[in-house]
């Protein structure tokens, strides 16, 4: 059996999602973004929505998300993705519209846009990457940074009396009438990835069915920002992030 | 022909709506119109005024410092606008609540006892229409037919049953207005 025969279509057991292109990713080794990108690409393709999907990219590490998925994209100002998604969906009710946002984008500078888009029940999906740190700007404190966790702007650890508490924004969003699905996922194991994809699929279906806003939070690693190896980062996430941000469905109606 | 008016009084006296009816009447008459209100918190109980300009030609400034006609419905407005009537122009005031009467001799001054009459005749809501009647008697800017057409256009349909009452009030105002020597 030569190589051509081995890679013939009928022998394929796994391949890169069709919507992911060959553009080299800028994400650090061990980062969760790449896996979540892949899941989104698979869900869009499997739902046959490739020609109807408009993604809204954030400011943050995922600012270049538009370089990796071959769909139409709109790059938002920092935190404004839910406002942009609101207009895109309302002006094009038949389209699939999702935002992809980090913790600083969604839960600090864009808190108002996030809450109000969800409260209006905009028929969009918000994909939320929570790695408790600002990756792109060099590892500063995020609204979701844990108590005592060290970052460039809290070098002695987050001090809640100074900086306030880690913001459990998904719990907050679950209180809003306009949201239909709020779930917290991770992509550190094969089982978690499978579960995360299911959650994304459901969220995308909700948006197309006009059921309201869905938020899929991915508790994520930032090996570079946390100054760890990818393996250590996964371990640290399980031990430190999950107790505060437990995985599971917060709301499904 | 061009008429430059100021209508001034307390918020709630129907100052702006009286100006609006005049403006709609001008619209029906085919004239150029500018209606420019004082706006903001004074609408809610403070002083309110509106400038109305009716003209056969394109209107320049909506903001004026002198007027052909000043319609004065309270004392603060009299203090402010008596001096702004053009020499030879007209000042109309309702004596209700006026403590110091106009003093200028180079203008024509008219009194219209509209508030007392409206109260007495149980027609308080048409107070501003009585005043409008007085204004139209002195300055026939628009025909009565077009006033009624303007009134109809400016009132929501559910209030059209009030049209005859308003017409009566306008006619009443025409009777009431009298010149002060």
């Amino acid at each position: 059996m030569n190589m051509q025969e081995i890679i013939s279509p009928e022998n394929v057991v796994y391949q890169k999602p069709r919507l992911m292109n060959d553009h080299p990713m800028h994400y650090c080794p061990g980062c969760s973004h790449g896996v979540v990108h892949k899941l989104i690409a698979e869900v869009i393709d499997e739902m046959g929505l490739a020609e109807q999907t408009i993604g809204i990219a954030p400011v943050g590490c995922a600012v270049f998300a538009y370089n990796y998925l071959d769909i139409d994209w709109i790059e938002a100002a920092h935190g404004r993705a839910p406002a942009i998604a609101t207009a895109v969906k309302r002006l094009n009710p038949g389209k699939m519209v999702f935002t992809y946002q980090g913790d600083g984008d969604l839960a600090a500078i864009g808190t108002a846009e996030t809450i109000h888009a969800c409260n209006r029940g905009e028929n969009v999906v918000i994909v939320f990457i929570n790695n408790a740190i600002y990756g792109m700007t060099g590892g500063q404190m995020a609204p979701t940074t844990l108590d005592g966790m060290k970052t460039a702007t809290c070098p002695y650890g987050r001090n809640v009396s100074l900086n306030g508490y880690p913001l459990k924004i998904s719990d907050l969003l679950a209180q809003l009438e306009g949201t239909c699905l709020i779930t917290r996922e991770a992509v550190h194991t094969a089982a978690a990835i499978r579960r995360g994809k299911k959650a994304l699929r459901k969220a995308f279906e909700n948006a197309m069915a006009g059921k309201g806003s869905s938020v899929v939070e991915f508790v994520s690693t930032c090996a570079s920002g946390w100054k760890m190896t990818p393996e250590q980062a996964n371990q640290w996430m399980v031990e430190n992030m999950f107790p505060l941000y437990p995985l599971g469905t917060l709301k499904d109606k | 022909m061009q008429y430059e008016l100021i209508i001034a009084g307390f918020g709630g006296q129907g100052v702006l709506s009286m100006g609006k009816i005049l403006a709609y009447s001008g619209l029906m008459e085919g004239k150029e119109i500018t209606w420019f209100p004082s706006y903001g918190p004074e609408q809610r109980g403070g002083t309110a005024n509106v400038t109305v300009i009716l003209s056969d030609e394109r209107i320049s400034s909506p903001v004026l410092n002198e007027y052909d006609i000043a319609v004065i419905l309270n004392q603060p407005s009299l203090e402010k606008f008596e001096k702004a009537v053009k020499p030879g122009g007209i000042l109309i005031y309702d004596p209700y609540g006026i403590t110091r009467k106009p003093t200028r001799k180079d203008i024509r001054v008219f009194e219209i006892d509209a508030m007392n009459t409206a109260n007495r005749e149980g027609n308080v809501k048409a107070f501003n229409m009585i005043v409008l009647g007085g204004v139209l008697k002195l300055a026939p800017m628009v025909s009565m037919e077009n006033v009624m057409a303007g009134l109809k256009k400016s009132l929501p349909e559910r209030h059209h049953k009030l049209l005859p009452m308003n017409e009566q009030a306008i006619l009443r105002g025409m009777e009431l207005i009298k010149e002060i020597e």
Partner: protein
Amino acid sequence: MANEIKLLKGNEAIAHAAIRYGADGYFGYPITPQSEIMETLMEEQPWETTGMVVLQAESEVAAINMVYGGAACGKRVMTSSSSPGISLKQEGISYMAGAELPGLIVNVMRGGPGLGTIQPSQADYFQTVKGGGHGDYRLITLAPASVQEMADHVALGFDLSFKYNNPAMILTDGVIGQMMEKVVLPEQRPRRTEDDIRREQPWAALGKPASRKPNVITSLELDSAIMEQNNIRFQAKYKTIEASEVRYETFKCADADYLIVAFGSAARISQKVVELARKQGIKAGLFRPITLWPFPTKALNACKEKVKGILVVELNAGQMVEDVKLAVECKVPVAYYGRLGGIVPTPQEVLEALLSLQV
């Protein structure tokens, strides 16, 4: 519905004109003295007739980003606000300029700085024509002087912004927004279909067909060499606009010894001043820029040999006067008269300022 004559406030005229233009969406946040724009739209319920989307946003910041989003899919979308709210929108306007997105923004100016007053002002001239947001960009700026022009400039603003893929602003104030005048509304135009938009705005993010590459709407470019090229392209576009889209109006300028230069409400007041001055035997004329950017520099420059003096009348501390001085290359005396903080000058006080120009 055809060419209907109505008596409307300037703010109301903008709302009606937007519906009739076939606008796809309006996103706004209430602020005096322009709230009638959204109130009128909500009353008219255009989503029931033309399908136009009208939404009250959670903030001016959200509203301008909704406009950014709508524009990114090639739709004709707009927002409106007054000075403090327009300050909040500057980020979005800069992003629109950077991503080369069309869209219409209305500023019904009030006195500032800060929360200021709700009374009329023209103090946002610098903010509008000199930048406002960050970066080297220009904002097509229209200055209506009547309720009719409020309506007309909706169509003109959308047309220009789509012609050049650049945001446009209607810069007006509480006088024009709050006053009622006769206005002829245009006929109802249909909203464009998705096919129309895909044909006319092939860059729009409306979903990627298999036949083309992804459309990405962004102002981001980390490679400075490319970013410089982007900027050079923007500047070339601005030069074209400056060469092709200047609009102004003159009133009794042909034989004028003295010229008043004013825009919007100040121009209306100044027109009266010209009439009053002429009654006194003074040959005065009015030059009214309709586009504040592009500024009618050439046309004003042509006046410099003919007049003895120019008075710039503004509802601010003297902003456009700088552009007038540049236009006439200081070859003729240029004076300024204005009132501040929401006070509107009367024709009489402007006349006195004009008389004091005489040598």
